[in-house]
């Protein structure tokens, strides 16, 4: 059976859990999405922008030096970092902005953690002449200064969220509050495979272009499917995008890497599937990091894009059905992978993607040379150089 079902459930996860004010808007979005997803004209437009604007397909690159250095599995990198705006987020922004345009909406709101989704949204808004308001936690703005400035350059209004942990979770809440207050003209351009139905399905569908390309590219390069696919997971959009076209190919292992922060035995991590419990938050039934009384716990990760206390409902289903495996990588392992990929392959990955690379670095040496592993490099690391410099004790700009 194909998930989600007509009510937006991935087995027991997903659904629609929003305030009554938003119900008609969510239903309207479901109807518009159901029409659009079967409309060839709509997909022609998306494909046009993918090809001529974003620069798709993104390469599938054999990381020869990294593979030889590790001495095990043959590692391929899916280069989503080479997309226009520097990450996979543009894939679902082009799709959603075209849908918003079809729906006659003129004002776009979005949340962002690392700023990759914010930059991609601001870019799409500039491209289509839409008003753009981005919510970003004040702490994330501080640790992702280049992206914060980039959004402003693109003409977006950037709102610093000062509530709670001042990170991604609070930015999502602020965006939902904006939506509930501006119901007529506003489209909420969500940035991950989360939130109320139809967002998880819709964003997965827009992101599936990653996995579809990998499938064709690996056939061309190796004449077969990969043995394993690795991606980092915060909300889970890049992972869902690369996993989904392989779900029925049971011989392909799917591995999602959560942010282990300072370690799962501490309070400082964002490993939702490892440490969370079932709950309802941000419009969906899924796993969340929370206390015994149902209060959401503020997560932690060195990477702002993985710093979220929940996970998309489809990942929750894939984990519970054991179709995908989820693991975690700590801050220091991700930072180490960040340096290794930079010096061995000349690719500076986003700190988010560095979690997936770190897992490959850890596992590849144990695997045979004929094991083909595809790692999704979901974004580039230019935005992270200040964080990394700080960790290295290097000062790279004058105050």
């Amino acid at each position, binding site marked *: 059976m194909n998930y989600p079902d007509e*009510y937006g459930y991935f087995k027991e996860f997903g*659904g*629609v*859990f*929003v*305030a*009554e*004010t*938003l*119900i*008609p*808007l969510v239903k309207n979005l479901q109807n518009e999405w159901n029409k659009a997803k079967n409309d060839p004209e709509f997909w022609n437009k998306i494909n046009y922008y993918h090809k001529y604007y974003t620069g798709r397909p993104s390469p599938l690159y054999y990381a020869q030096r990294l593979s030889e250095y590790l001495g095990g599995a043959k590692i391929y990198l899916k280069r989503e970092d080479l997309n226009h705006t520097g990450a996979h987020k543009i894939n679902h922004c082009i799709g959603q902005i075209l849908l918003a345009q079809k729906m006659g909406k003129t004002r776009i709101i979005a949340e962002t953690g690392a700023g990759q989704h914010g930059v991609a949204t601001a870019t799409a808004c500039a491209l289509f002449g839409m008003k753009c308001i981005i919510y970003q936690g004040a702490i994330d703005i501080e640790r992702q200064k280049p992206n914060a400035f980039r959004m402003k350059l693109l003409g977006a209004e950037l709102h610093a969220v000062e*509530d*709670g942990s001042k990170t991604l*979770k*609070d930015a999502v*809440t602020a965006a*939902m*509050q904006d939506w*509930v*207050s501006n*119901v007529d003209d506003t489209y909420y351009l969500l940035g991950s495979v989360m939130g109320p139905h139809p967002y998880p399905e819709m964003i997965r569908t827009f992101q599936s272009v990653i996995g579809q390309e990998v499938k064709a590219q690996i056939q061309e390069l190796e004449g077969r499917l990969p043995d394993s696919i690795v991606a980092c997971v915060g909300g889970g959009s890049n992972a869902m995008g690369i996993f989904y076209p392989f779900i029925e190919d049971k011989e392909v292992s799917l591995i999602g890497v959560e942010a282990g922060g300072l370690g799962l035995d501490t309070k400082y991590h964002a490993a939702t599937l490892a440490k969370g*419990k*079932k*709950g*309802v*938050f*941000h*419009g969906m039934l899924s796993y*969340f990091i*929370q206390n*015994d*009384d*149902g*209060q*959401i*716990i503020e997560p932690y990760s060195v990477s702002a894009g993985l710093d979220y206390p929940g996970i998309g409902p489809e990942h929750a289903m894939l984990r519970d059905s054991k179709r995908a495996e989820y693991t975690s990588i700590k801050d220091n392992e991700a930072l180490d992978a960040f340096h290794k990929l930079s010096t061995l392959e000349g690719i500076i990955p986003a700190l988010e993607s560095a979690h997936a690379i770190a897992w490959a670095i850890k596992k590849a040496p144990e695997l045979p040379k004929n094991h083909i592993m595809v790692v999704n490099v979901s974004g580039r690391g230019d935005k992270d150089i200040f964080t990394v410099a700080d960790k290295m004790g290097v000062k790279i700009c004058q105050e």
Partner: protein
Amino acid sequence: MSRIDDMFKDLKGKKAFCVYLMSGYPDNETCLEIMELCSKYVDFFELGMPFSDPSADGPLIKTAGTIALEKGASTKSTLELIKKFRKTNNKTPIVWMGYYNSIFNSNIIKEIELSGADGLLTVDLPIEEFKRLPKTNLDIIRLITPTTDKSRISEILKGASGFIYFVSIAGITGTKEAQDLAIKNTVEYIKANTTIPCMVGFGIRDAQKAKKICKFSDGVIVGSALIKIISQNLNNKKEMFAKLEEFLAAFTQLNVEL
């Protein structure tokens, strides 16, 4: 007949006045005292269970919730608060208001019922998901908003109990002001299609506004305006209670024609 039904029946067509209080705000002890003070003026309560990420609430109620949680408020302390209040007051109905996650992972609904509460209002649980709630004697309060169309209003009214909560603005608590003319038509439509009372909440700042709304509704719910008085007088309890009493007293005139 529930305590909520009895309350409306006893009003004999007069308007109901409800206030929203945040459990454990500004602290557990003061919260109980505020409830006792309010009970002299109000017909019933909404008692908010604080939540870490209250997506439907504006800055005033959100901040109150944060402070309550810092002071140790929990589902357990909220149940205790209701039990303590019930020791001296067995008449004023209490509606437990909160977010679904607070009651998702536990069997708390039975405990809410046993504590002496009378209704349950869950902001982020739409009617399609009510089947998830266990069987209970609590009145499950349903919301109607300015974005709800007539066919959905009919769906919501089917099986409704206690009262209908009409959210008068599209937005979060304590921000916009309710536009009485714009909501009059919807409230009249609701009342024409149900036998249970229709209360109006969100955006009602003072007694003047309340009186206007009461011309067509069965009563009003006031939240942020009251929380604001508490928040402005945190360091002076005497002043806080005097100001609360002054504010509440103005609403006793709800049934007087302007």
